[in-house]
């Protein structure tokens, strides 16, 4: 009894430890029972700079596993329970690879991960060589699935789709407001993510006759102020600024825009990590008003998505980011495939995943369906706008909750 109360005390201090202990307890209890246990391996950055997002994704997987188990496990396999086998990638590809290999050695039926494209690229190769299905919850880089891998699938839209749709949406809403875009300035962080989205945007913009310039890059890891960059935007005379960055630098950009006050009709994030987050209006204050972002997003009209957000909040005392829903759906995809295959044989599970037909928690053009390359072809980047202190979906109309305000006069 004494040790137990000690454990409880410790757990109360470090919140979340209770849940972990609970999960572990439940898991080992399950494995000692009669029902078979099926392991799902996760690979997320649980330490390092991206631990915040990694934890969100990991929590999404945990909720997914719990939901499947609570509903009776995998019925086609005699009610077999799912169990989490977690791996910490630390955000580096080589740790990701050794963790992936450890999980494969542990006998996981599928892998879920990884948040960073470089890590996912490596894990995808491991999955392919070991013939274990790999479902990517968040990882945008197009190149990962350009090698013809058979065992890798991606839930979120790839980077190029963000860039392309951002260009289309900007053109559409500005035309609808009778205030067409004349010139687009682009500000992006300098790694594969920002660069990839920029290139796709530029290609689409040129196709539809939008004038581009200037292109400004920055290092997201070290940047502490973006006023010089925004001053450059102001001097260029562009009337729309498109930004692709992570959360922290997104807030910096918003603050710089408020200081410099360039004459912009709109600031549009292309897969920006900040402008569509529930925390953004709090962190950027009035500077956040009117900001657009093209990103994947919760289906605000879906009861399941609302229930997920509420459950996440009560369980983890934090607002769920959309990534958590993608991780949750990744587990559902795997569970459905196990159900369909009626087997844990990797190649059968892989074939069943390839035929997935499942309604996601995120906005989409229909149920999750994977293309031959493994891309979720129905995933839908949508346009959100911060209105009255909260980001809401404003375009396309099929998904919109409110209508876009354009010009948005950001920073004025």
């Amino acid at each position: 009894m004494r040790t137990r109360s000690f454990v409880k005390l410790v757990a109360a201090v470090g919140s979340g430890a209770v849940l972990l202990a609970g999960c572990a307890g439940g898991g080992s209890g399950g494995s000692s029972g009669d029902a078979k246990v099926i392991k799902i391996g996760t690979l997320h950055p649980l330490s390092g700079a991206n631990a915040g997002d990694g934890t969100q994704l990991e929590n999404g997987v945990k909720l997914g596993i719990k939901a499947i188990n609570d509903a009776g496990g995998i019925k086609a396999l005699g009610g077999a329970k799912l169990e989490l086998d977690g791996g910490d990638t630390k955000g580096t590809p080589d740790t990701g690879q050794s963790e992936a290999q450890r999980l494969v050695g542990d006998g996981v039926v599928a892998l879920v991960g990884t948040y960073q494209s470089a890590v996912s690229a490596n894990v995808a190769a491991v999955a392919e060589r070991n013939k274990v299905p790999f479902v990517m919850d968040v990882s945008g880089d197009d190149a990962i699935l350009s090698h013809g891998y058979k065992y890798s699938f991606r839930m979120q839209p790839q980077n190029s789709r963000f860039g392309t749709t951002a260009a289309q949406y900007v053109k559409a809403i500005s035309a609808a407001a009778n205030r067409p875009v004349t010139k687009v300035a682009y500000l992006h962080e300098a790694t594969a993510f920002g660069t990839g989205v920029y290139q796709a945007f530029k290609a689409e913009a040129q196709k539809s006759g939008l004038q581009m310039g200037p292109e400004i890059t920055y290092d997201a890891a070290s940047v502490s102020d973006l006023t010089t960059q925004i001053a450059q935007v102001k001097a260029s005379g562009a009337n729309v600024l498109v930004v692709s960055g992570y959360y922290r630098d997104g807030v910096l950009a918003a603050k710089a825009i408020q200081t410099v006050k360039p004459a912009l009709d709109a600031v549009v994030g292309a897969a920006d990590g900040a402008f569509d987050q529930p925390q953004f209006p709090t962190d950027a204050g009035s500077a956040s008003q009117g900001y657009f972002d093209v990103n994947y997003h919760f289906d605000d009209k879906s009861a399941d998505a609302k229930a997920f957000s509420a459950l996440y909040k009560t369980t983890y005392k934090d607002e769920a980011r959309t990534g958590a829903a993608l991780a949750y759906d990744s587990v559902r995809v795997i569970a459905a495939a196990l159900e369909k295959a009626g087997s844990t044989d990797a190649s059968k599970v892989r074939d069943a995943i390839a035929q997935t037909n499942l309604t996601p928690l995120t906005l989409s053009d229909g149920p999750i369906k994977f293309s031959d390359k493994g891309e979720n072809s129905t995933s839908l980047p949508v346009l959100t706008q911060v209105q009255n202190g909260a980001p809401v979906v404003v375009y396309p109309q099929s998904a919109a909750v409110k209508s876009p305000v354009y010009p948005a006069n950001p920073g004025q």
Partner: protein
Amino acid sequence: MTITTETRPGSAAIQNRRQSIQRSLIILVVITVLAAFAPALLPESSQTIAVRVLIFAIMAIGWNLMSGYGGMFSFGHAAFFGIGAYTDVYLLEHFGWSPWISLVVGAMLAALVAICIGYLAFRYKLRSAYFALATFAFAEMLRLLATNTSWVNGTTGFHVPLLPDNSWSMLQFAANAPQYYYIGLALVVICLLITMFYLRSRTGIHTVAVRDNEDAADALGVNVMRVKLTTMALSAAITSVAGMFYAQYFMFVDPDIAFGQAQSVQAIAPAVIGGVATLWGPLVGALILGPLSDLTAGWLRNPPTFLEFLSGRGGLDVVLYSILLIVIALVLPKGIVGSIRDWWKRR
């Protein structure tokens, strides 16, 4: 002739070198034979760790040659590691060249770059901290160059394309194939042999002499610049081999992995912990540091009850890393091997 208590290999130690190289060769044979059994004894899932140990060891052997024996402290060995890795993947992707050829090309390129860096640094008489900073700056420069150069795929980096079958000529095998381990082990042994015989050669002896007293060596007619550049070039070539092997094993490189600071640290840390300017130090250090992050990750995954509060917290390996470095610096300033050697001699 009888003053043999010198810890640094001074003139008397040179006399002992013939004897000591025989002893070193015997130790090397014993270690190699023992290491050859490792894949049979280790669980399959720890193969990656074993290969990582070997990569750490090659890098540290390279670093130790230049910074330990040569006394030119480098904080930018990522530059040479990255050149090896990028040469391999670039030639593979664009020309389909075998990694074995890229290994030679990469080593030559790395040596060339090392000579350029060294020439500029010594020409302008950069020493100690300034030299270290200069090497660091060169590695960073290469990182930024790779990041912003589209013909090496910029930030995206390269993937090694997967082959359907095992191939010795393309250095690619099934995941977890023991071949990777044996190739890595062979590379480590070759690098150790090169170090041994280089230190025994005329230039090698001059290298140590220049480190111990540059002015005296110069006065005695040693061509200081040539000796330093040769040592740097050889060190860079060895480190580039680690880069090539890394790329072939992990099948992916990008500018951060290849040229990032973490890579420079991974060349230094095993050598410092194992023992700077000792033949076996880098190997011992790599054996300790290679598995460290996986061991701590394992502890954190299923912590014993008294460590329960640690579960779910990452980064313990970094903490242990730092503690190890501090303890070694305080208690064993010559590293593990260096301290044991001193203790053995004093005994």
